[in-house]
């Protein structure tokens, strides 16, 4: 299990004039916690996720995962991209086993695990399909199955359901929750959708833009396992209103 610690992190792009993308970000994610980074577009939430992933470097500040600094991307921090980012020339199966295969993991180890994860994501019948033959929601499920097969302890999800239609998005959220319930990875989930953040997360960090900073941290008190009925309740809507007010500031 893994935890993430971020202290006074800044990200400045050295353009003229310099753009402050992130300022004084403080963030602690406990092992197995589900955290949502919520904010309008341009607030730096994706930049923050890219820094945790190791795709970008912070300008100043501390970022550590399990007490060691993050220097580069790696399999312990699985990323689920907005547009799935599957290799279009590989079948679903080859996409899912790509990670362990390039890492030199024995086939006897990754094969059963890949089968299990594909089954968990409801993709068993589509092993031989190419990504282009799948719907957007199914491609995202492959994207999730691929990081689960690697055994990533941390899932970094960058608006993974943002491009999906409303019904598909809801069923993907339920699927993600049930998988999270079973495997308990640490999740950092970037979204601009308040309902999505509240429905999924233990903790919601509300971000504001220009410069990107964390404006508020809210504990989401709802019991688990959660079901869709939750999103129609009064408590849920009261929290939603509270966040909306925060975002207006």
């Amino acid at each position, binding site marked *: 299990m893994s935890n993430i610690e971020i202290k006074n992190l800044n990200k400045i792009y050295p353009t003229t004039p310099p753009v402050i993308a992130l300022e004084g970000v403080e963030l602690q994610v406990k092992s197995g916690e589900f955290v949502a980074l919520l904010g309008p577009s341009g607030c730096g939430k994706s930049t923050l996720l890219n820094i945790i*992933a190791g795709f970008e470097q912070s300008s100043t500040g501390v970022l550590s995962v399990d007490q060691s600094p993050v220097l580069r991307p*790696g399999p312990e921090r699985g990323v689920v991209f907005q547009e799935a*980012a599957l290799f279009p020339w590989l079948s679903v199966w080859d996409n899912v086993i790509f990670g362990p295969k390039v890492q030199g993991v024995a086939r006897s180890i990754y094969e059963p695990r890949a089968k299990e994860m594909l089954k968990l994501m409801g993709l068993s019948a589509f092993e031989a399909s190419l990504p282009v033959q799948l719907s957007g929601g199914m491609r995202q499920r492959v994207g999730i199955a691929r990081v689960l097969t690697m055994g990533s302890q941390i899932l970094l999800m960058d608006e993974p359901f943002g491009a999906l239609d409303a019904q598909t998005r809801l069923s993907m959220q339920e699927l993600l929750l049930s998988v999270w319930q079973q495997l308990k990875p640490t999740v950092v989930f970037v979204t601009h959708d308040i309902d999505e953040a509240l429905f999924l997360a233990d903790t919601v960090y509300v971000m504001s833009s220009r410069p990107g900073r964390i404006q508020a941290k809210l504990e989401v008190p709802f019991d688990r396992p959660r079901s869709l009925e939750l999103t129609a309740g009064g408590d849920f809507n009261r929290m939603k209103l509270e966040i909306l007010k925060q975002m207006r500031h």
Partner: protein
Amino acid sequence: MVQFRLRKLVLAFILPLLVICFWQYAASDPDMAGIVPTPLAVLQGWQSWIWGQAGLGLNPYLGTWASNVSYSGTRVIEGFTCAFLLGIPLGLMLGWSRLASELIDPFIQGLRPIPITAWLPFSIALFGIRDVGSIFLIFLGGFYAVVVNTTQGARDVDKNLIRAALMMGVNEWQLLRRVVLPSAMPSIFTGLRIGLGISWTAVIVSEMVAVKSGLGYVLWDAYYVGRMDIVLADMVSIGLMGFLSDSLIVFVERYVLRWRLLQNH
């Protein structure tokens, strides 16, 4: 569907048939004798060029078609193989590594504007009237197209695919081999097709000047002795070879890029 195809076929053949009819009519004029042979004369000349018995009479072309096609074809295969064996890895390197690009790309871009035909005298001086000179030109012609397109393909790899691969723990070599190369494949095939076309141009030009066999040599030789039927049959043969070799690449491309064919539907 069948009707639709038949319609396409019929429409496609109307213009060529008209041209051939006009050609037959115009070339039958006595004034044109010795300048432009009729289509029928070309067919007859071609036939004897292919099947004629060598060694009888004064016709030096009898029965030499297949061997000349094979001389030219072999040169193209040799030169073009060198072109893509060097061009694809180099293009990947140039597209991928900034250092390689800054070091080598200006050199290639500096030489590229020199047309391959301008290399002819230098090539003959260097290699003499031998196969190597011809193969060098074919290589050069194919190489530029392959390297430029491969470089472009390797530069245009989707950033998220690279990030996804890095996230899954690839090393530099795996990234090149498993992500950059397949991503660049469509551009590589574009380069191969363009390059092969230029290689055929190069083989004809070089055989006219730098060697004493092949379709290009026969083309120029037949012109000199006034065998315009052979000249025209030779031109059609070159076109045919170019078409067939391009079809071969398209065939391989369809197989290698199956995933892309599905994408376009």
